[in-house]
């Protein structure tokens, strides 16, 4: 059994070069994006069927800086499917197209998927996209083909600042602990790890060091990181109550006293 692998993305050293995006597209044969002006350096927009890495540019530049260097200007983050230990997409998939690999990563089998898109409604990270060209959904594969050939994923290989680190999950967690402790020592109190432990979907195989609260990066905090199945009980109970009242009301209204019609 191979080791559990992971990505540790240290957003504090991301420079927004998008080498990860390009490497991902090149290795996986993904189409380029039509250039768009988005009032930002971000011309990718979002993770979808054609973009499995997305460098987010979070603009926190104050409108009127009162003091020179008075805070964070930009937050950069190379976003990706989180390969959750307890994956929402996998939970709702009716076809078994979404599976765990021998590396404990989450993989969509394109020849099994039928394009129902239930996984898109479930993924709390918007990491899955539907392709009209293929008729199925796509997301980061963790470079499954490269892993099987003892190669590191293309995005980690291309990252020039080691913002994206690939390796054994336990080793990466130790590195992350040391890095966040160092940042705290330097006075960056907001620095925090996201998905390193099991408070978010049982732990993420692609976890992050963030320089602000998760919500700032478009990530649900631990309180909001919930699985879709949490709503089964309440939903079915509501339906059962309606069924009992509905049947009773129907019998009361429709009884004719004449027996079998």
């Amino acid at each position: 059994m191979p080791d559990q692998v992971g990505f540790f993305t240290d957003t504090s050293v991301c420079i927004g070069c998008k080498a990860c995006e390009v490497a991902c597209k090149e290795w996986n044969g993904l189409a380029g994006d039509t250039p768009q002006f988005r009032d930002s350096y971000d011309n990718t927009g979002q993770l979808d069927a054609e973009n499995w890495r997305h460098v987010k540019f979070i603009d926190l530049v104050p409108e009127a800086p009162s003091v020179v260097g008075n805070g964070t200007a930009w937050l950069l983050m190379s976003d990706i499917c989180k390969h959750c230990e307890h994956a929402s997409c996998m939970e709702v998939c009716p076809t078994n197209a979404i599976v765990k690999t021998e590396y404990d990563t989450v993989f969509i089998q394109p020849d099994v998927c039928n394009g129902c898109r239930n996984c898109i409604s479930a993924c709390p990270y918007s990491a899955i996209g539907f392709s009209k060209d293929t008729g199925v959904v796509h997301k980061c594969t963790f470079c499954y083909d490269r892993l099987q050939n003892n190669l590191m994923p293309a995005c980690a290989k291309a990252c020039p600042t080691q913002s994206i680190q690939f390796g054994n999950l336990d080793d990466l967690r130790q590195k992350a602990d040391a890095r966040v402790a160092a940042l705290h020592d330097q006075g960056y109190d907001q620095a925090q790890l996201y998905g390193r432990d099991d408070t978010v979907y049982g732990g993420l195989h692609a976890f992050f060091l963030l320089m602000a609260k998760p919500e700032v990066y478009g990530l649900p905090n631990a309180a909001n990181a919930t699985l879709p199945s949490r709503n089964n009980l309440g939903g079915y109970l509501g339906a059962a109550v309606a069924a009992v009242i509905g049947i009773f009301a129907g019998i009361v209204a429709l009884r004719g006293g004449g027996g079998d019609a």
Partner: protein
Amino acid sequence: MAEHFAAPPGWTWYIALYFFLAGLAGGSYVLATIMRLRGSPQDAPIVRIGYLLPLPLVVVCALFLTLDLGTPLRFWHMLINTTPGDVGLNFHYWSPMSVGVWALSIFGAFTLLSFLEARGNLRRLPVAIPIVGSLFALYLASYTGVLLSVSNQPVWSDTWALGGLFLASGLSGSAALLVWLGRYVNGAPQTEARLSKADGYFALLELAFIVAFFITIAIAGTIGKTVSPFWAILWILVLLSLLPGIRAVVARREAPESVAASVAVIAGVLLMRLVIVFSAQS
């Protein structure tokens, strides 16, 4: 306050229409069964319609579900696992979509039997068959709301009320549909009057679930997505469509509802599903 960062799944017309027709198919079957068991002999023409309708509706439901898939020819992957080395049936009790596909298929078999019986192609079915079929009918009419809730979408996943709401509305729409169609088959006015009364009760139940729906999404902080000005107008129309039935119950009127009222109720059933499906994804 709930925070959502999930992308919309792009479920639009096919899915909204499927939810609508599933509600009418399930509701018609249940009402026909209640009338068969507890009604009077005069109800027979409308009971017959109640058993004739579900089969074609279920067929159209299956068609819409299939057409909504990105790869329609793989619709059977819902039922059979095609993962290499793991071949077998797909049934995930925790996924309403998985259970729903099985329920639709099994209910389809019941609707076929009842359809053939109603047409006179089969002898009278044992009463156990429509009773068991009604359990699947109730599931079909309600699980679509639960399916929406079992997600991480704003609005849908912030409430427990959608399953009950869709069922109440499906029953209401079915009662209105049977009243309407009853006029074309010489249905007894007493039957139509009792169905109108039932429609009123179901409308009250639907109203209660609409209130629960709004309370739950208000608490979650996502109510703004579904009551922005455009959607609010449609919600008002949905509420107006409940009025004829509720007014008849309050006034204790024992007469069939008008064709206009029946059409308004059915339109409200469709509109409510359209608003819920589209507004959360907007």
